């Protein structure tokens, strides 16, 4: 792929809203997020459990299940409106244009079919090829993801593979139809550190070879630093900060991002430093607070934060943060802290 393509937009999400209609009330899992992704770019989506990062990915893929529903916004992929597609069109879209890999490969692979069978099925669902061509493609992909002896492994069942190997198979399956974008939902979370390092190296390697765009969903900031070009930090269904990896790690503007970075113990620390935790508990999504969702836990909380939701403010080129602290008038008017 040539250089110019990297400046072209592949995915554009505008004000996406997803709600779950539960018996006890509406849960706004994703409350209006916007971002875009260029060809060949790796976007990291970071957030804690319940921040809506997976729900957002599921809605791009059209995999949202009842009672979840997209209630607003738009998703444009390569010029096409994804949300308007029929379920038949979506079937074609998934796998061919975008594919997804999940946290736990064992729940995604069918235990009663061989790996080869499942890979061949994935190709033949999307492309008009003969069985032999599909088989050749499957072996080629297994080889690409670093599985030794792919011909023999093709006739094995998922339980004969280790956790790291299964994740490799998942990646092979995701890439088998040459998608333009891959959504990776916590692909390394269930793995041990040394295996996690293997998979990250593999994904970096494949990304460089194929120049595919990746949306990398994780809660591990270390993994993000390793692989992503840009990062969106999510909290309670909103993107609170977005920027390049350097922006996020070296010039964080949102108190939540800063809090996350400060609360993590680091293996490369020179000497012992006490951790600075983010106080309080995660947001109850059934009764989210008014104003800024992070307000009640924020050490810089002002009066306005508890009333009005902060707009997304441009800090620098490509770096935005949704925080009232960045608005001078808001700061001058109310210096009163929380309570």
């Amino acid at each position, binding site marked *: 792929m040539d250089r110019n393509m990297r400046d072209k937009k592949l995915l554009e999400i505008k004000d996406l809203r997803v709600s779950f209609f539960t018996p006890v009330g509406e849960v706004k899992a994703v409350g209006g997020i916007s971002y875009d992704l260029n060809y060949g770019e790796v976007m990291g989506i970071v957030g804690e459990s319940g921040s809506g990062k997976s729900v957002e990915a599921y809605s791009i893929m059209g995999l949202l299940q009842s009672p979840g529903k997209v209630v607003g916004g738009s998703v444009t992929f390569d010029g096409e409106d994804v949300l308007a597609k029929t379920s038949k069109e979506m079937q074609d879209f998934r796998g061919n244009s975008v594919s997804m890999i999940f946290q736990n490969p064992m729940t995604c692979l069918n235990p009663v079919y061989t790996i080869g069978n499942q890979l061949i099925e994935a190709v033949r669902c999307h492309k008009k090829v003969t069985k032999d061509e599909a088989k050749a493609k499957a072996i080629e992909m297994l080889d690409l993801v670093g599985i030794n002896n792919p011909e023999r492994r093709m006739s094995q069942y998922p339980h004969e593979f*280790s956790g790291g190997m299964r994740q490799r198979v998942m990646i092979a399956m995701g890439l088998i139809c040459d998608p333009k974008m891959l959504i990776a939902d916590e692909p390394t979370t269930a793995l041990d550190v040394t295996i996690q390092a293997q998979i990250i190296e593999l994904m970096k390697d494949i990304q460089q070879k194929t120049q595919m765009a990746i949306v990398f969903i994780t809660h591990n900031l270390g993994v993000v*630093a390793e692989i992503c070009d840009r990062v969106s930090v999510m909290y309670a269904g909103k993107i609170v900060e977005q920027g390049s990896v350097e922006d996020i*790690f070296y010039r964080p503007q949102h108190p939540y991002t800063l809090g996350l970075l400060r609360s993590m113990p680091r293996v490369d*620390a020179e000497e012992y430093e006490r951790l600075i935790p983010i106080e309080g508990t995660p947001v109850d999504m059934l009764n989210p607070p008014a104003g800024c969702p992070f307000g009640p836990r924020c050490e810089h909380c002002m009066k306005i934060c508890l009333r009005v939701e902060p707009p997304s403010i441009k800090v620098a080129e490509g770096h935005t943060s949704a925080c009232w602290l960045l608005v001078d008038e808001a700061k001058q008017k109310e210096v009163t802290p929380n309570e």
Partner: protein
Amino acid sequence: MNRELIRVEDLRKYFSIKMGFMKYNYVQAVEDANFSIRQGETLGLVGESGCGKTTLGRAILRLHEPTSGKIFYDGKDITHVKMLPYRRKMQIIFQDPSASLDPRMTVGEIVGEAIDIHKLADSKKGRTERIQQLLTQVGLNSEHSNRYPHEFSGGQQQRIGIARALAVEPEFIVCDEPVSALDVSIQSQIVNMLEDMQQDLGLTYLFIAHDLSVVRHISNRIGVMYLGNMVELAESNELHKNPLHPYTKTLLSAVPVPDPKKSRARHRIILEGDIPSPMNPPSGCRFHTRCPYAIPRCKEEVPEWREMAPDHFAACHII
């Protein structure tokens, strides 16, 4: 230097698995562990899943009966004694807070149960006061004692688990992955609380985790385990600045660092392959199948557990 509180000698734990009629196979979960924990310190145990760190922690408390070897508590051999008096001194905090709390008991009952068993309260009023004091100590409200575990978030449930462990005023606590199941922002709250409690109550911890950054942060000394064997044991800073065993080096280089420039610039040792099965571990040094520096001797001889530098132990032929 403080006195030794726990000493483990040649501790071994095998689990038998029935393979057919009268046929058994053994999972060699912990193989010849030798170490001690000093009063007031935190000993960290790291390793990948299946390396036997949890089994070792539980075997010290005799929640698993050791297959062979000896455990000493404060100089006394506790390998074959009745544990009830020692349960007051040795407690455990589990990984999954929701699974380790009985859903049908209120928080007060959960915390109070230990007080009743060891008859630590002389009156009903004293018992209630003690429960409330424990809950406040771990950062919960004293009114929370009438609620059920499901009404709490993961971080709060872990606090209840900690209050339960503290109820008997223990001296030694095994913390078995106490923060792994929690969100990043909550992890640091619990880590800080564990540190404060250690300061205030003079506790001794065995801190088991797979996350090296957390272990590095909280531990005075760290033991690294691989496939049932302890491969290296050293003071925390020493282990990070001067790792000797090839596996420790790999593990350290594999931990993702939240710093894009550093993490992209550094050299990573990527191990080939997966962890072998503990049912059929490799001969000699168990790490030799994946070790980038393996020599023929590693395949044949089990490396000896040696003191390589003052207070820095490792088991490897090539050091």
